[in-house]
């Protein structure tokens, strides 16, 4: 599963296990790029939960999946800063952390948001790139003046004392980050979990962790 799911998935799995005590769910977190490369080379994963839609599509096109990509949740961007509260103030700062647009879906969205807000060119030289959303968050809370992070990070246990520094970003500024998944193996337990992930019960947990869902 994509690394940004590491706060929410344990919760979902706990609920799932309460209903299906016979199924053992093991999660391997890594960046979606690594996971896609591994799946291509026969990694023994049953479900791939990506941070975007492009990696599942890539695998689907190669015929490595059982199902088409299905969006299970949408991520939202948040601004994290101790100094400012809105995007418009960003140019006053000297270092702004974003995820790498070429490898992380949240990076792509962040770039888009900045462009749409007309800030990208001004900020370009002040951007610092995190390789993953976790790294970007680490930058934001310690080393940079601000960062565009995943809203779901706010729900991580560690972030509770820092919650007030998270500020929402207008969702209109970027295309929602569709997180898609594919089923890779046709076995019953995997299918059961796959289906559970799309259930309203799972949906409400996703929501509680800052993701949005189409109704």
């Amino acid at each position, binding site marked *: 599963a994509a*690394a940004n799911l590491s706060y929410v998935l344990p919760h979902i799995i706990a609920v799932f296990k309460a209903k299906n005590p016979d199924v053992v769910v093991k999660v*391997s*977190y890594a960046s979606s790029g690594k996971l896609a490369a*591994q799946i291509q080379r*026969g990694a023994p994963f049953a479900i791939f939960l990506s941070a975007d839609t492009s990696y599942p599509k890539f695998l689907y096109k190669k015929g490595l999946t059982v199902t088409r990509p299905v969006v299970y949740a949408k991520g939202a961007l948040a601004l994290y800063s101790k100094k400012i509260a809105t995007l418009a103030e960003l140019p006053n700062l000297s270092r702004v952390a974003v995820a790498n647009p070429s490898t992380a879906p949240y990076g792509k969205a962040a770039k888009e948001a900045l462009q749409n807000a007309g800030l990208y060119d001004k900020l370009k030289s002040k951007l610092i790139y995190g390789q993953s959303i*976790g790294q970007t968050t*680490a930058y934001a809370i310690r080393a940079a003046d601000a960062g565009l992070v995943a809203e779901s990070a706010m729900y*991580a246990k*560690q972030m509770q004392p820092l919650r007030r520094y998270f500020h929402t970003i207008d969702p209109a500024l970027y295309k929602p980050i569709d997180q898609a998944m594919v089923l890779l193996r046709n076995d019953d337990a995997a299918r059961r979990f796959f289906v559970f992930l799309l259930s309203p019960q799972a949906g409400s947990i996703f929501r509680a962790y800052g993701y949005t869902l189409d109704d």
Partner: protein
Amino acid sequence: MIDWTPFTLSFKLAFVTTLILLLIGIPVAWWLANTRSRLKPFIEALVSMPLVLPPTVIGFYVLWLLAPESMIGSLLEKIGIEVVFAFPGLVIGSILYSFPFMVQPLQSGFESVDRSIIEASYVAGKSQLETLLRVVLPAIKPSLLSAIIITFAHTIGEFGVVLMVGGSIPGKTQVASIAIYEYVEALDYEHAHIYSLIMLAISFAVLLSVYWLNRRFKRVAQW
């Protein structure tokens, strides 16, 4: 609650890797130290090559090479050995990446050993192998120790290759370094700190006892 499996996996991996690398590295380093072949500089440069690529990228190529779809991979699959996303894959990846750490110090140790004790052993009728094991290796103990410790510690800490080839499967390929990395990624700094501390503590204890034993032993048999 602390899950100890990543730690046992890490130490198992480091132990197996170091052991195999000793068996491979000693002959290679010995050959390099003694050869007069014109190819020597090429092979020396080649030995260091795994160092210049990022571990993840090495892992990526190893994955490509050993995956069931590849020649080697399908062969291994046929004889029933699961390599990628399994412990043997971690070992292969680590061996490849840590190879220079084993060979380099050993080679420089071999190169600076006093030739005449080797000759004295030959004259005493001892084969090259026996000379290597009973005369040369004991004489280059500082280099041997440094090769073992660098390799061991580095395998413990490395996670790029291992993550790529093994895929962080809990209880199977998720070693401690990956676990710590994942905690950091998940912003779970508390667990990251705890795991790091445990890792440091165990490793420190292991290394300290090695050095301490080494020192005690030296006091008996100084050289």
